């Protein structure tokens, strides 16, 4: 099986501090108003005071069947055979933003300055130097992990095996086959896309 690097997130460990977003911003010089990862508030829901709330950090899901690549007119957006990560070649990207519209997870963003798309590469520059992606390194809760989910010997595969029965992927209506994995034990999984859920909850449209 080919290599598939992606994020594995232990949601019970995420304390909603947004440190990953800021670490990513500095590491990758991300423009204001955009980000490669985002922490959503999955709650509170339920009857006060017995409420449920967990935090959920979303990166690019490095899909097996990525709709962003499918719609890219120039081939700038591609999935690397080497690590299964999706990259955007900035020389080829024409900034049409088709991929942004195609991504069901809102995981990529448009840089107005360079007129190109931008997305999580699992900090490829750091990984090439043998270092850890900035968000993972800085995660205060130890919630973020990355690795090859197709390699049964990888740390993330072991972590997933240990937590069998508690593993979730993002709601996938478009058959994108997201590679991101979420481990959640202490709360009930909310099967909505995080941005849709958060927006609806904050807007008073959910119980």
């Amino acid at each position, binding site marked *: 099986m080919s290599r598939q690097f992606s994020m594995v997130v232990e949601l019970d460990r995420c304390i909603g501090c947004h440190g990953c977003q800021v670490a990513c911003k500095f590491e990758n*010089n991300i423009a204001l108003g955009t980000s490669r990862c985002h922490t959503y508030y999955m709650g509170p829901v339920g009857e006060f005071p017995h409420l449920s709330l967990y935090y959920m950090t979303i990166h690019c899901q490095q899909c097996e069947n990525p709709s962003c690549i499918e719609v890219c007119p120039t081939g700038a957006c591609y999935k690397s055979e080497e690590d299964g990560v999706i990259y955007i070649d*900035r020389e080829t990207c024409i900034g049409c933003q088709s991929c942004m519209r195609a991504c069901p997870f809102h995981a990529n963003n448009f840089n107005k300055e360079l007129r190109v798309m931008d997305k999580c590469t699992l900090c490829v520059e750091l990984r090439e130097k043998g270092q850890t992606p900035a968000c993972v390194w800085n995660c205060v*809760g130890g919630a973020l992990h990355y690795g090859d989910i197709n390699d049964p010997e990888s740390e993330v595969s072991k972590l997933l095996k240990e937590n069998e029965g508690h593993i979730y992927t993002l709601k996938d209506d478009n058959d994108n086959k997201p590679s991101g994995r979420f481990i959640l034990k202490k709360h009930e999984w909310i099967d909505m896309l995080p941005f849709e859920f958060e927006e609806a909850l904050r807007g*008073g449209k959910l119980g």
Partner: protein
Amino acid sequence: MSENKPFQDDYCAKINIEGLPDALCGRTFLTPCEKQHLEVTDEEHIVYTACRACIANCGVIAHVKNGQVVKLEGNPADPMSKGRMCAKGLSGINALYHPNRNKYPMVRVGNRGEGRWKRVTWDEALDTVAGMLMEIREKYGAECVFTSTGGGGNPEVPSAGRFANIFGTPNWFEPGSAQCYMPRVLACAMMYGGSDTSIADSNCLEFFDEKNCPIKSLVLWGTDPSYSCPASGGRMVNELRQKGVKTVVVDPRLTPDAAKADVWLPLRPQSDVALQMCWIRYILDHKLYDEEFVLHWTNLPYLVDCETRFIVHPAMGQTENKTSALIWDKKTGSAREMEYPWNDDYDVELFGTHEIDGKLYKTGAQLLWERVEEYTLEKAGELCLLDPADIEKAIRIYAENTPSSLCLGVATDQNVMSEQSPMAANTLDFLLGNVEKPGVAMQRFRISGVLKEPNYPVPYALKCLPEEQFKKRLGGREHKGLSIWKAGHAASILKAIQTGKPYQPRMWVDRSGNKFGVLAEVGKWAEATEKLDYIVHMFTYPTSMTAYADVVLPCQEWLETEMIVETCNTLVARQQVVHLWETRDETLIWSNIAKRCAQMGHEMCQKAFDPEFMGEDIAYWDSMEEFFDQMTAAIGMTWKELCAKAPFEFMSKEEWKTYYVYKNILEDGKPQGFNTPSKKIEIYCDAYIKLGRTGEPFMPYPMPPADKDYEPLPYFIEPPESPMVDDEISREFPLVMTNGRLPMFHHSTLRNMPGLREMMPVPELWIYPDDAKKYGIEPESWVWIESPRGKTRAKAYVTKGIRPGTVCMERFWNPETLNTETHGWQEMNVNVLSRSTGPFNDVMGTHILRGYLVKVYPADSAPKGIWTKPSDFRSWLTVGRS
């Protein structure tokens, strides 16, 4: 493979020194620079330092390229943060290279608030400030000067107090202190004599050895480590939870820690002490306390003279011996004198009332029981608006899963029961025997000896303040608890400015992140500035305070400052990574001012530079190195040597962790006991009565008694504004306001950080859905919040994560409107609503920052001129490449 070159709109673009002057033109607060004090080399290197974006000191690896800080990351060698950094700390690069830094000393040339400044040299600025100080002292007396510090942003808190003492004024304050942390410090000093249980203040060191720490349950009471100190305390608590430690969170707000707790008790703000007394009652009633510890190591079995309310020490008078006390021996049915520590001949009674020679005596335990007896689960449920079954479940978790600990946060420091709450919280840990055993917060571990006060090394030099000046301390007689930090009383200082009584303060020297974001009823302070002849403000960038200032002195960001940091068994050096502009460390600035006063003939300032005279208080210093060398000498190193070696373990973890210090046998063959007069844990703390009457043990001179005795045991009263009391105020203002930390800000700092403001551009008002509906508040809409003292705006966050009837808004101000008539503090600032008038906490003088009453109603629009879109914050980015 993509070529991931930086964007032009770089988030942390490399600073272009040559381009800087152009980029700065047209900014009112700035003067184009002629010279950048930045050492530029071609080398790329790393510096091991420590963060100070909040009061934690997380270890940091700073990457420096061509003389510029290009990357920050956590240092895994730090035993508390273990290699992690939070959003606040990571923003250090933005803070350092912020275009709106205070860069040079400046004096005002226009009217106050006009924003017209003249750049001056440090010599000129110090001459001006010292000249003002000497003039006020000459004309009106040194007490008419007051100093202040705090507000976040790397404060060296005692520096402002030391300068005040040496200059001869008893008036310095921190908006924190009486409202933040000091009540807890005092309660621990009085009752125990060891470390307090504040996670956010870098205590609870035992817990940071998460893997080995045997704690079984943890109560987080009015504290939210995952928001206040994510990388250190937040991370640690998370690890404890992961290994199965049960947690209880007491907080009206559903914080991340509350969301992950086994029991969340969203109590009514300000009802904390009622709930704590209920817990005490339950633990006594159900005999869940550690009887062996309570009998042998607390003063609860000691007999109290019900008339004097003091514990009877029979040997007192002849020997000053407070360690022997009267107990009731059940075997002989008589009162007996018991020598410290214990006498096995007696069958010591814990609860009892006895008449001896016509006088009434009760044991401390009896008095404690009588104090808490009415606080049943049902009564606490009514007062705190909680389900009694949930309260009971929480108590059982804490009391039946020991070792356990109760960690108190800032919430209880901000209301009229600020001292009673830590007294009650400590009592709970004492009753369960959660003291100095493995797995508990209260410990007296060893220290390196470099610092006497952890991380605040500057000695207060109280001896420099003459007795007649000391006695002029505003609020000092009434609120003697402040004297543990030798502090004055902010609300009394404000009143003196307003009324001229007992004398008129005339000059304010302040170092803070924005007093107008953190003081209570800031509108009154703004008015008060009109009565002040001179105002000096020192900070790293302009704040609202700048608009009222006559002189501005540029302070250093944490990446420019130096400090010795002791973190668990490790010494870390905050090192100067780079130095920009003409900024100076505040610790040095106060010394510089004292030196100029000395040159102008101030005798005590002259003596303050004499090492022989100053002794342990240390002579003032001309450089940070000179200052630190005097401390690092304790371990046979110079500051430079320490910097080169740090971080390093000064002793092994095993040597450092000293459990059961009280059991150490001393030369007299007796155990060491605790740092209290009786050497026992003083749950019945009659030392409070003595403190209120005389100022002992903290005041160097006897002070007349407070109007009313301080209580030796905790008590609960309804706050002056309460939804439980039907009166005019509660009818007009039906909601209770509280505050709570956010992970992107610390105190009043960091509102000028683009990457943090884009996440939280405006303050949110947390309001329960039913309340929002009742008051016509739409989700995400603008609202007015009004208290009897003022009104302000915020954006509604309609959520079940706040208890019904309560609203929550964190502190805020708007750096983008500094140069408008609001000076940034009037748009969206919860502290225009808070309460600076009495009643205050008796011991501490605490005024009310949380738990007062408000009403809310829809607002038509956002305040004028505020920034809300991410692109608005662009001009605060690091100056871009040309």
